[in-house]
């Protein structure tokens, strides 16, 4: 007779599954694919403005993210969760935060880091503290500072090969970029972040079908208008107007696709407002007073760390609890 092992015993009697046990037809994987669909305009704008090579960058990131997830799940003997699309989405989001013409080996390293350290180390989807894609981006920024801050002009402007982003241009040269260019995306920047139009299209789609809450993006924009508005009113020559800051850099992309991550953002409406406004405050501080021209990534990562605390203090009052 075959010897019984502990695993056999557990297999027979228990079937382990994490909550919730009540299921809706709108599953996590459907939400993930909705976000991927919402990112299509950003992918198209990246290819239109920066060329077909960006598609290779995106595919590399997605491929390595999915492969890392596959290997980790195999080694840990857990259920394969690749079909839920979360790993592919992380790779896609990471790719869209990278500068154009990014070296492929760095894409691979960033994706592996994002999935392995950012997500699987904590226990997989739903357990991560930080947004995995942003963590991968932060790792790449620290690992390859030169490659990660080399920006390329969109193809429409052929004379310059490399150029500063609008934020860097403003911070170091005091040149304000045209709002219409910022809106359409005809500027240098990361793959997915340049075109405000494409991001807003995806964002509105996500809000309408209910994948993301409108509170976080709106509170971030409100926060940016208030804080940057105050600075702009104090000294218009030194600080740019709020609209410039909303449309430039990764602000909109972060607000709609990064800060709204289900796992790493607060659960309550009140918490979401606090979360969004504090992200904006951090962005305003980093962009205006910090050494770097852009701070959306660090602002969101820092607030991810605060999310459990926000959740703790914004627990809704139980009905009939009294004061």
């Amino acid at each position, binding site marked *: 007779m075959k010897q019984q092992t502990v695993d056999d*015993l557990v297999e027979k009697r228990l079937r382990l599954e994490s909550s919730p046990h009540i299921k809706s037809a709108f599953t996590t994987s459907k939400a993930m694919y909705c976000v991927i669909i919402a990112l299509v305009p950003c992918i198209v704008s990246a290819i239109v403005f920066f060329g077909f090579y960006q598609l290779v960058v995106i595919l590399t990131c997605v491929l390595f993210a999915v492969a890392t997830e596959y290997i980790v799940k195999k080694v840990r003997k857990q259920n394969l969760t690749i079909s839920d699309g979360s790993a592919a989405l992380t790779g896609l989001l990471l790719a869209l935060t990278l500068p154009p013409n990014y070296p492929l080996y*760095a894409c691979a*390293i960033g994706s592996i880091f994002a999935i392995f*350290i950012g997500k699987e180390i904590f226990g997989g989807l739903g357990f991560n503290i930080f947004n995995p894609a942003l963590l991968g981006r932060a790792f790449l920024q620290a690992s390859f500072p030169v490659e990660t801050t080399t920006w390329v002009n969109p193809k429409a402007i052929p004379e310059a090969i490399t150029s500063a982003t609008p934020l860097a241009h403003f911070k170091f040269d005091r040149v304000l970029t045209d709002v219409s260019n910022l809106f359409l995306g005809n500027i240098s920047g990361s793959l997915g972040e340049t075109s405000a139009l494409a991001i807003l299209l995806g964002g509105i789609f996500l809000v309408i079908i209910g994948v993301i809450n409108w509170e976080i993006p709106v509170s971030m924009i409100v926060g940016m208008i208030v804080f940057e508005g105050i600075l702009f009113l104090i000294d218009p020559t030194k600080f740019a107007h709020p609209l410039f800051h909303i449309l430039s850099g990764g602000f909109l992309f972060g607000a709609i696709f990064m800060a709204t991550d289900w796992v790493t953002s607060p659960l309550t409406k009140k918490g979401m407002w606090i979360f969004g406004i504090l992200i904006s405050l951090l962005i305003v501080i980093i962009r205006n007073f910090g050494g770097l021209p852009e701070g959306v990534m660090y602002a969101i990562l820092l607030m991810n760390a605060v999310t459990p605390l926000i959740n703790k203090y914004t627990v809704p009052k139980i009905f009939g609890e009294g004061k």
Partner: protein
Amino acid sequence: MAKVNKLSYEFLKGLWDQNPILKQILGMCPTLAVTVSVINGIAMALATTFVLVFSSFLISIIRKLIPNQVRIASFIVVIATFVTVVDYVMRALFPEMSKLLGPFIPLIVVNCIILGRAEGFASKNNPFRSLLDALGMGTGFLISLLVLSSIRELLSSGTILGFQILPKGTPQLLVMILPAGAFITLGLLFGAANLYTLVRERKEKEVIITKYINT
């Protein structure tokens, strides 16, 4: 329990079972700060081991003379004496290494491993056992720093002890010489150490349970 009382175990426990870095999680400050390159890690570990061995030995000799109320202060005085010796010797003989390690040599005074062994072991055991314990802990510290600094140096510049290991042109992760790289590497090392212990324990238990089920 038989294993615990053996003299050889006093030395061997520092290597793995009670490794100061991987198991006791002591002395994190020098561990994270100086392991940028292998040579720094070795120098730091040797300096710490020197202080650890001599202070443990001396404290163990005078352990019955020290009044209980002022024992920590007395330990620190002994430790500080040996740290001063190391500091001046390094400044005279290896001025470059001394500059590289900077404030971390004087900071050995407050290294938790040394005070921890003095309080936890040397003040309760005879000098010979204390000496073995300190040597074991020092070696364990050296091994951990060696592993940590090797990984960091290899990934940040492709070299170990200055010798080219990875082929030139391999992407170099600058993050590994930054504090973030130290935290990530150390965290993964802790994870690997815990995983090893877990798997070993699980296997032992499984053998017992399998035997039980099949009888």
